[in-house]
């Protein structure tokens, strides 16, 4: 999510702040230095003037070290001092040199004069400058330290606004968890913006994950409560029947009736437990367990398994061009099997037609029966867990169609009930034929 006109990066902001601080210090030092240098130039000029004035007008004052221009003339041949003004300078060759006289440095120029048989004249003036005197070193150190402090202070002040977006981000992060679950977008620095955006996305993902966890926990809790209730109901009937048998001495025919009810309730408990296990394994379906399924073969097998020995149920399969689908063989067979069983058990059907055909990217399996059908307003409701139709026979788990719906969702399709052409119910199971549509994560509800 790149916005047009992105803010400067934090690096740029800090660099600008540092440059600004340095620039201010450099400018201040430059002003100070030029001022000092200008003053110093004037002072040096004055000193030179003083020296000239001293030398030409007040030779008697030349003993004064402060002003002194020292002049010493020596014979070129013997080295004897010919004349001297002020302190004596040592013997020097022609040229320039620095010498110490009475603890003061003098810069001396020695020239050769062709007078009186050749004389070397050395003229020296004080070398110590106003600017570079040792005495001033502490002052310069002080100024240097002060400018360091000023630079640090300026850096501190200017870096504040530079990193302000980061600070805002920190404050916002701190506010999180104190009731405020959303991040206000932070502007000003690119890194902070990116970070705030990333954190916002992370928070959203966390909130979504938390909501999903809460939902699935809630669903699991509801499901457990429902399952307990569903199991307790047949157990209640069984307990009443057992107590009846125990307390009363029933005649044989009544006794047989009670025992028949008992075994039916027991089968109901079994059916619920089996279906619960199947639901759980459907929820745990793994993508790597998928196989290619021959649809016609699967439907034939379901038909064979549901034929009664008495031959009172006729099951027809039409699936010539259904081909193969990719999925969980046991799960898909369970779904079709549940539909056929429902038609026989709850619909009382004697004729069932299984049809499979391709429709675009889907395989459509229809189960038509000539049973007693189901009121249209229940077509949707019976797909829920522990939901039973008003025409359902006794002893069902209430989970059969929920299992079909789960498998349909796993296979990227759906289950639909409608009034069928044979007078009973039509169940239409859609299964995706594209491999990508299959997802074990798909919610079965």
């Amino acid at each position, binding site marked *: 999510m790149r916005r047009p006109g992105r803010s400067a990066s934090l690096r740029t902001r800090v660099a600008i702040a540092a440059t600004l601080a340095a620039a201010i210090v450099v400018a201040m030092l430059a002003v100070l230095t030029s001022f000092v240098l200008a003053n110093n130039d004037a002072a040096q000029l004055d000193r030179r003037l003083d020296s000239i004035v001293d030398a030409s007008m007040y030779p008697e004052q030349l003993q004064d070290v402060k002003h002194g221009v020292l002049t010493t003339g020596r014979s070129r041949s013997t080295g004897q001092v010919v004349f001297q003004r002020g302190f004596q300078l040592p013997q020097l060759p022609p040229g320039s040199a620095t010498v110490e006289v009475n603890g003061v440095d003098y810069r001396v120029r020695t020239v050769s004069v062709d007078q009186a048989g050749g004389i070397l004249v050395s003229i020296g003036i004080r070398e110590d400058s106003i600017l570079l005197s040792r005495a001033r070193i502490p002052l310069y150190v002080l100024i240097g330290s002060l400018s360091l402090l000023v630079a640090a202070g300026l850096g501190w002040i200017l870096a504040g606004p530079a990193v302000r977006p980061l600070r805002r981000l920190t404050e916002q992060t701190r506010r999180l968890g104190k009731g405020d679950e959303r991040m206000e977008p932070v502007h000003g620095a690119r890194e902070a913006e990116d970070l705030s955006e990333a954190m916002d996305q992370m928070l959203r993902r966390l909130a979504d994950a938390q909501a999903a966890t809460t939902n699935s926990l809630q669903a699991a809790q509801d499901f457990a409560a429902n399952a307990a209730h569903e199991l307790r*109901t047949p157990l209640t*009937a069984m307990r*009443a029947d057992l*107590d009846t048998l125990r307390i009363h001495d029933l005649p044989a025919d009544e006794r047989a009736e009670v025992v028949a009810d008992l075994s039916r*309730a027991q089968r109901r408990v079994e059916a619920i437990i089996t279906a619960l296990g199947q639901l759980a394994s459907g929820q745990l379906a793994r993508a790597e367990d998928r196989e290619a399924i021959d649809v016609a073969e699967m439907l034939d097998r379901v038909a064979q398994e549901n034929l009664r020995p008495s031959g009172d149920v006729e099951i027809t399969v039409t699936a010539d061009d259904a081909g193969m689908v990719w999925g969980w063989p046991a799960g898909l067979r369970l779904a079709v099997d549940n539909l056929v069983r429902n038609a026989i058990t709850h619909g009382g059907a004697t004729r069932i037609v299984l049809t499979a055909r391709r429709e675009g990217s889907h395989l459509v399996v229809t189960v038509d029966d000539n049973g007693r059908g189901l009121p249209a307003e229940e077509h949707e409701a019976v797909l829920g867990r522990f939901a039973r139709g008003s025409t359902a026979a*006794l002893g069902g788990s209430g989970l059969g169609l929920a299992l079909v719906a789960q498998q349909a969702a796993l296979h990227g399709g759906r289950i639909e009930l409608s009034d069928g052409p044979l007078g009973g119910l039509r169940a239409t199971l859609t299964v995706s034929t594209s491999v990508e549509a299959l997802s074990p994560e798909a919610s079965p509800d």
Partner: protein
Amino acid sequence: MVDDDPDVRTSVARGLRHSGFDVRVAATGKEALRLLSTENHDALVLDVQMPELDGVAVVTALRALGNDIPICVLSARDTVNDRIAGLEAGADDYLTKPFDLGELVARLHALLRRASHSAEGSDAITIGPLMIDTARRLVFVQGDRIELTKREFDLLAVLAENAGVVLSRQRLLELVWGYDFDVDTNVADVFISYLRRKLEREGVPRVIQTVRGIGYVLRAEP
């Protein structure tokens, strides 16, 4: 006998029939109310969890119509909870599914016996902030009238008649419900908690005291 599950309906009704009851069954709350309004019945066994009109609604409707028929609700809840759906609405007792048929039969017999001779009090009893008008079956706390269900009133009346005497759970079950047999139920404790909730509103001090390990007693001081 009202339950939405055909298996439970069939089996429990059959068991009750063999135990000497004349049983009519209903699959829904609506059907039960219709049966009760057209025929005369002595007791009601009612499943709480039913689609549409549930057991609590049936109890509420019956009591609102002034029908005092003894009601035993069948609760599917397995948690130990004072809030048994149906009891607060005015049912007399409850059993948790699955239950012992003999237990249900014994309780029904006792409730039927009780229903025929309701305790006849003489006059008003006053204990602390509590005033019980046994003749008109009215209860006042600090002058304000408190609405009690029939069973709650019977329990309070028994405690008031024995004010200062500690009554065990067993004795309360015998005096209020007519359970003169060994019975495994906490229905007395559940009703005590309902009574306390209703009587102790707005900082009224506790009048029903628990005597730990023995039972309950009605007196103003703990």
